[in-house]
């Protein structure tokens, strides 16, 4: 998947911002979700939402890696 396109990054940013209930502008590529107020349930929600959006399956073992927008893009790129 060519996940580093601006469109994909923006889609994930919006999705994450909605779940964390924060302004999308705050979801920088390197901003840690935890620092933006995400809890463990929100992290699970992000995983399920990304799976649903891009119709892929992300193993739960990847969950600890999904700490920022950049990490999610890396995971999408590795599909």
């Amino acid at each position, binding site marked *: 998947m060519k996940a580093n396109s601006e469109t994909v990054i923006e889609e994930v940013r919006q999705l994450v911002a909605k*779940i964390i*209930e924060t302004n999308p502008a705050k979801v920088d590529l390197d901003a840690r979700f935890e620092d933006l107020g995400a809890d463990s349930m*929100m992290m*699970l*929600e992000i995983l*399920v*939402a990304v*799976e*649903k959006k891009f119709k892929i399956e992300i193993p739960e073992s990847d969950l600890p890696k999904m700490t920022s927008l950049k990490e999610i893009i890396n995971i999408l790129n590795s599909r």
Partner: protein
Amino acid sequence: MAHQKIQHKDVRNNRIVITGIGVVSSIGIGKEDFWQALKQGKSGIKPVTLFDTSSMQSKLAGEIADFKAEEILGEKGLRNLDRATKLALCASELALHDSELKITEQNTDHIGVVLGSTMGSVRSISEFDKEGIMNGPRSVNPALFSNTVINSPASQISIRLQIKGLSATISSGFSSALDAVKYAIDCINSNKSSAVLVGGAEELCEQTFKGFYKLKLLSASRKNDKEMICPFDVRRNGMILGEGAAFFLIEKLSSAINRKAPIYAEIIGYGTGFDYKSVNRYRFDSCGPDKSIKSAITSAKINFSDVSFVASSANSDVKGDAMEANAVKKFFGVKKIAVPAIKSMIGETFSASGAMQLAAAVLMMKNQFLAPTINYDYADEQCPIDCVPNEGRPLKINYSLVNAFGLTGQHSSLVLSGGRI
């Protein structure tokens, strides 16, 4: 609203009073709006907008059309909460604010939450399962799972208000909220809690609506009757559903006096009765309500003649209204007591109904004014009672009886004292 002058004649240690009220209803949000609407006989019944009713003959409900939880709770943290939870959160927040009780690190272990709810999770369970079945188990949102358990709204109240004491959910159908009040009183009197936020909540949803429709309990669901909710009127042909939540802060009288809290009423009696012959249908035989009323008045240690009015449970069911009228007639005589039915305005809110009637009763006592039963035009000889037809009226009120009767066999009543506290 001016509080009644209260007289502290006898400060026994087990007297329980109501010191906060929060209401979210189809006729008003907050106790003031709710009371003004009740007093004026305003109807909250309207065409349903939450879901499609085109396949059914019943199309009306007491929907809270403009319900915006964020106006009371703020924007954050509401995204994954279902409607029943948001209704309960708003009503409990309003009740706590009204009580002027501050929850602190010092008192939080002794504050409790008790919620009466039965159908509150039906839509959430249905939607969660539908997603899993249609798109596979991986597609379900884990954050929505908590909505599928019935104790979730009570827990969410504790989380939001940072309450560390008792958290319980009572699920006993139509009488859930009054049974929740009894449970809360027992917890206070056994010193497990010093104050409890107690109430009832139900949301209007397609699943519940269709269930009641299929059971032919809704108005217009049997034949081409006019769809209307007219308790005790001979034209009645079934209930119209509603939704909402009402919460109360209750505590010992001594605690309320100590913190100079506003006192609305004292809860002086409770009774309950189960009619095992009642299976998804009301019965004209009022053996369950009889037991409920009699044991409530007995436990209150007052006479039937002391009661000024009955906050009725009637919802426009042909047999259900006659059942309650039968019980009232038996204990209070024919047309000797006022029996206002507020479901004529807000619809049948099921597990929340006892809390709605309790809120209405307390406000009627406080204002010394009876709210009407609206849509009452044609008397029914099976219901020979004074339902305060169509227009409210002032009345000197000392004691009232609140009924929450149902079609699942469970019936409960509460007795309130508003005068000499």
